[in-house]
């Protein structure tokens, strides 16, 4: 194709797109990209539930599309560009690793709104949003500390990003608080979704005496193994009770629906602004699956009390006195970590054994 015909063709397409937009001005197009399959029954599944809730709330005024299994990196940029070109008004990029791709593409399409989950870089048309998962981790840490008999808790970690490190610290601090003898065994699998590897990691942990497993990966593989081996585990992002009806103590469930509805509505109303949203238990973004029937009432009560104090704002999970892993002081007695430090958290608290991969 000659360059001139190509340009003419592009212009014609652009013109068509413009006229199409004029006709369909009352329909807002929203797109979502996911790092894994929506069938992971975890993180991506939960985002897609949020998308469906948003569609239900806004009805015919919105048209949403999704792209699954988009790798973080160059591919993400290609997919985002494609979505922007195809006339989407707002695009949700739901994984941390899409960060730079989102900013690059957003620069080229100033009229399209972008929303990046769990990231920290913003622009005029790029907003960020995340949930304070670590508040949920504080709760499951408390439960884990009470429920473990071997005092060994296993943690399947994905990548050393602040969100994951917040989770490990919050869980450890609160497990330790109720059970000083508790010990964390952390395994990094370097993947968000690889069922075989997650299952192997769960097996390795159980073989070494772990009887409560936490995970920060997306699939239900570890829960399946926990059920088979008769140990406890916590669901991640989604209620994973189907994979482990006896094993699941509870799950941290991400609720994205209200947020997605608000943001798409803001685009419709023309009130959309770039901002950072970081909601936790209080905002209803972090919720819990029903507690396991085998959980003693006292433990359930303790967990519910903690949820209530976090919800009311009376208690923040990162409250001093807390030391860093090397023994230096992080937070003095009663001091509360500020959001900036939490958002960029890159160290373990005192007592956790092992190094964070760099």
């Amino acid at each position, binding site marked *: 194709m000659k360059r001139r015909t190509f340009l003419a063709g592009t212009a014609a397409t652009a013109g068509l797109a413009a006229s199409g937009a004029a006709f369909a001005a009352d329909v807002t197009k929203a797109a979502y990209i996911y790092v894994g*399959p929506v069938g992971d029954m975890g993180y991506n599944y939960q985002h897609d539930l949020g998308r469906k809730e948003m569609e239900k709330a806004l009805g015919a005024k919105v048209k949403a599309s999704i792209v699954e299994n988009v790798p973080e990196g160059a591919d993400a940029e290609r997919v985002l560009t494609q979505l922007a070109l195809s006339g989407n008004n707002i695009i949700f990029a739901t994984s941390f690793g899409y960060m730079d791709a989102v900013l690059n593409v957003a620069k080229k399409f100033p009229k399209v709104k972008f929303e990046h989950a769990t990231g920290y870089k913003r622009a005029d048309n790029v907003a960020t949003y995340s949930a304070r998962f670590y508040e949920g981790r504080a709760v499951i840490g408390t439960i884990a500390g009470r429920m473990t008999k071997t005092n060994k808790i296993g943690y399947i970690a994905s990548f050393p990003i602040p969100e994951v490190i917040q989770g490990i610290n919050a869980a450890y601090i609160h497990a330790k608080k109720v059970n000083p003898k508790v010990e964390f065994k952390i395994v*990094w699998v*370097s*993947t968000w979704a*690889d069922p075989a590897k997650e299952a192997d990691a769960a097996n390795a942990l159980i073989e070494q005496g772990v009887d409560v497993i936490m995970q920060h990966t997306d699939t239900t593989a570890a829960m*399946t193994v926990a059920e088979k081996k008769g140990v406890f585990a916590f669901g991640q992002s989604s209620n994973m009770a189907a994979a482990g009806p006896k094993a699941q103590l509870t799950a941290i469930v991400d609720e994205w629906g209200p947020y997605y509805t608000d943001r798409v509505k803001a685009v419709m109303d023309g009130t959309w602004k770039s901002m950072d949203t970081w909601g936790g238990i209080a905002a209803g973004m972090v919720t819990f699956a029903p507690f396991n029937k085998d959980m003693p009432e006292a433990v359930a009560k303790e967990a519910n009390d903690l949820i209530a104090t976090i919800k009311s704002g009376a208690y923040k999970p990162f409250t001093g006195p807390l030391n860093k892993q090397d023994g230096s002081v992080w937070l003095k007695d009663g001091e509360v970590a500020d959001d900036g430090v939490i958002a960029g958290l890159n160290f373990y608290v005192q007592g956790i054994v092992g190094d964070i*991969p760099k």
Partner: protein
Amino acid sequence: MDLSAINPLVLIASLMVSATPILLAAIGELVVEKSGVLNLGVEGMMIVGAICGFATAVETGSPLLGFIAAAAGSALLSLIFAVLTQFLLANQVATGLALTLFGLGFSAMLGQGYVGLKPPSTPTLHIPVLSDLPVVGTMLFSHDLMVYVSLALVAAVWATLKYTRVGLILRAVGENHDAAHALGYKVIRIRILAIMFGGACAGLGGAYLSLVRVPQWTEGMTAGAGWIALAIVVFGSWKPWRVLLGAYLFGGISVLQLNLQAAGLKVPVQYLSMSPYLITILVLVIMSANRSRAALSAPASLGRSFHASH
């Protein structure tokens, strides 16, 4: 660090489980490549096997039927590859890659209704006397049937290739298809059968993943296992026992590195994560270091299309 937390007996038992999918796929691909065909679609055939096996096992309640369906489904898929490369003489590399992409997408479609379900559990065999032996009993004789099937397959492939007429013909086709054709052997037919055998094995490997090792269905759950199987065939210089060694080495170190992490070994995680790949390649390359002999082990007609008019 507490290395005593790692129980070597349990470790060996889990490495056998962890290596079985790769071993099954690799031994099938070895036969395919011995016949002179390079099928890069192992990953695609594995994942189709994973869902075919899973769906059948869930529907019928029988893991055995699941494994049979997995083998049949993947063999059928490999038939597409066979028709394209053997009759239509399509490029094997490109067709194989396409088969992987197709398999990944196709399995995702088939698996839509099976997400979040649990398959019937595959029983572990209890072999009288052997399973009750101390030490070796838990280590070697407390697995499910497929672990032993995979080992038997390795032995069978080795014996067939080395000692039987069928094996000789297969190798002849792979070494020099023109000569084999001149001798009156049906090159295309033999290759198609080999491709289907490879497909069936890959399917079994995939089903082992979705029925035993994890056991659940998740889209894209093979996560590159097919590519590892392909690499092990090459680095194992097309020898069945080396393929077994390679698969167990890879599976073993994959499991070991997770155990070492859990035990708190003071080695950066990145080195542990890459160790299965590095060590497997290193060991197999060193074993095949004798260059003149290594060159001999690659089938001479590997990846070349055959047409009778040549």
